[in-house]
């Protein structure tokens, strides 16, 4: 039992159980299989993007641009489709654009060493502007039947997006635990100078992480476009970055880097999804949902700070 409580994700598991209980009492519709499937399905984009954000935050960084990357990728996929390009090729090209955006971020942050907050704040506006530019300001709709599969299809009894998300989560949990790249991310976030002394290329690892994040956002945006069926460049994915960051922090990630797990983040996404869904099901004004998200972000940083204080206390004790 004690071992169980020591698991890194213990607080978030507890929180998730608590809100689940709360909403099942508040609304009988909450604990339905249909509703749970809905929660998972509605948050697929979040799940996938959050994998990338977890790696970025583990590095001690931050990426505000993911929502705009999503917009620019989804819009260009829509554009490719409207030119009659085969759905699979359009999706692949879209993912490439996501990777390209990640490379832009990675170049400025890792190679040019400009603070991540500034770079991604700038690219957040740049990518958004480009998205609106190429869309001509109109909605992207009327995707062909073949494309909808990415968002609404079924595979082996579960929905295709969920299938992709599960595979990606599994792959990246493995990558973070069992490959050198993953461990390098943890070491750089934990102690950058020491990582450098150990011969780890901070520049290359950072660059890779931002590119991988671009890749993940690319995949997420194809699913997003196919699921929603229409994309508006100016609003698609707005606020996504903030929500995903909140999920990472709530899931036990430290804003100072080095601490956090993908599993924890996934629980964080689930938690936020449950809260939103619960608020809507409990018939609270939809305007409250945004306010609640902001509140959760602040809650996450409060928890983060408390954890840091606790850890520092332990450290002082050790020195004596």
């Amino acid at each position, binding site marked *: 039992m004690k071992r169980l409580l020591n698991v890194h994700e213990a607080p978030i598991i507890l929180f998730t159980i608590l809100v689940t209980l709360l909403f099942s009492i508040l609304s009988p519709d909450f604990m339905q299989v249909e509703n749970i499937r809905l929660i998972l399905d509605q948050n697929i984009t979040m799940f996938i993007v959050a994998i990338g954000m977890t790696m970025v935050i583990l590095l001690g960084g931050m990426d505000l641009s993911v929502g705009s990357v999503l917009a620019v990728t989804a819009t260009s996929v829509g554009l490719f489709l409207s030119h009659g390009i085969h759905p699979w090729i359009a999706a692949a090209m879209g993912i490439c654009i996501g990777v390209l955006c990640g490379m832009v971020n990675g170049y400025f942050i890792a190679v040019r060493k400009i603070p991540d907050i500034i770079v991604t704040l700038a690219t957040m506006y740049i990518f958004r502007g480009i998205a609106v530019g190429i869309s001509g300001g109109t909605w992207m709709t009327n995707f062909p039947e073949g494309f909808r599969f990415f968002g609404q299809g079924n595979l082996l009894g579960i929905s295709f997006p969920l299938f992709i998300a599960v595979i990606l989560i599994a792959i990246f949990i493995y990558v973070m635990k069992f490959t050198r790249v993953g461990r390098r991310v943890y*070491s750089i*976030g934990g102690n950058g100078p020491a990582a450098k002394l150990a011969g780890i290329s901070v520049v290359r690892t950072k660059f890779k992480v931002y590119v991988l994040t671009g890749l993940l956002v690319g995949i997420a945006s194809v699913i997003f476009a196919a699921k929603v069926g229409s994309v508006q460049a100016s609003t698609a994915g707005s606020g996504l970055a903030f929500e995903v960051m909140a999920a990472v922090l709530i899931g036990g990630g430290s804003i100072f880097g080095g601490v956090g797990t993908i599993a924890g983040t996934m629980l964080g996404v689930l938690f936020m999804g449950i809260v939103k869904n619960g608020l809507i099901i409990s018939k609270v004004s939809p305007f409250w949902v945004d306010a609640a998200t902001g509140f959760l972000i602040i809650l996450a940083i409060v928890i983060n700070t408390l954890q840091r204080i606790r850890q520092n206390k332990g450290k002082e004790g050790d020195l*004596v």
Partner: protein
Amino acid sequence: MRHPVLKMEGISKEFPGVKALSNVSFELYPGEVHALMGENGAGKSTLMKILSGVYSPTQGTIRLKGKEVTFGNPLDAQRQGVSIIHQEFNLFSNLTAAENIFIDRPEMVGRFGRIQWSKMYDEAQRLVDSIGGGEIDVRKEVRHLGVHSQQVIEIAKALSFQADVLIMDEPSAALPENEVKKMFDVVNRLRAQGVAIVYVSHRMKEIFEIADKVTVLRDGAKIDTRGIEEVTEQSLIQMMVGKEVGQLYPVREQKQGQEAVLQVKQLSLDSVHHVSFELRRGEILGLFGVPGSGTHTIAERLFGLKRGTGEITIRGAAVKINSPSQAKAKKIAYVPPDRHRQGIIKPMSIRQNLSIPMLPQLSKYTVLDEARITEMSREYMEKLRIKAPNDGQSVDFLSGGNQQKVVIGKWLAANPDILILEEPTRGVDVGAKAEIYHIIHQLAQEGLSILLISSEMPEVIGLSDRILVLYKGTIVHEFAHGEADQEQLLQRASHPLSEGGHL
């Protein structure tokens, strides 16, 4: 005749405008502990940096096991068998001990790039066990380990590279006294395994306990290498300083029996337990203890940086000090130990640094009174002999000694009753040291009460009227003026029970 594992010949290192090392030769044999000594600025750290691959020498050669080598960077040196353990560990507190040892090492990567965790844990445990760290669980994250265990992890990391040469930079500085013994055990095991160790330390006592040979550097040149049995503390000091010590300290006239300015009763916080003492007017009270004994905590408490229980009385009136600003209002000043982090604001000017604690007094309706600031900063630059072209000079360009004088000056300007000095001469050259000692003496003569906390025993002995010795957060002994010598002081500070101390 054994062959040296490491041979440095004719090493010189020049930086723009400075010759840090000139023609230093150094030999190291397997299974020996070789102490490297010298004052700050003697070239020790430059030599270590060359040896560990941080710098490359301007001239000279390094031979490792007979083969001439060059180190491109610290990792390169490590791979070739020369590892260094810094005073501040280079560990990842968020990772397990095992991973710290084998971070990013290809030999831990199996097929398809998969990291072999069980192999890593096994090897790590084996390494740690081999140097007597059996009680360490290598699956634990480093942040949960104590300082000694962290040091063992650092050493294990070096050994995992098959280190022939291990450089230990002030290895006992971060350790509590009881763990120094354990560290010596580890060093002895390494010696038995044939590892050559360069042991850098200021602590005489340790050198005589652990070293086989000692090399002394002074002003960037090697003075001599001798067997430990050939030297005494006195002769070592002489080699390091190059002149008789003694004139460094001004002669203190005894001024006892004055009123108590500061009284501390039953102070407890963190690792400090029930400390009581009083500080008299015009007195220099030395507070000595090994790192971790609580001297630093007491200073932080008195300056309001930390809170705790107990009573603090100033001139008979009980006071509450819960923040530095409250301490300042009670006319307590604190010269902190780490001048770069706590003492000076680097890019800002001398006058700004000098005036910062006193700005409320040096401004009208928050608008700065430039004329008075100029007057004040001139006065203290002159009084403390701060060498700079003018008070607008950035403190970044000052020498360590002058920077330290700025830190002292900014508090003198605040006209305190009580001055807490912690490590007032850390990283300061000998000349400036003497000047600062003179200043401290002068201030006490003028009636200022001074609490002197220092890890340099000669300093505490040379300056203090009385010395309180702290051990594990309790005062265990008081030396009256002229009573203490280095040996007794260290004795009391490290084994208070062995000779029937006050406990």
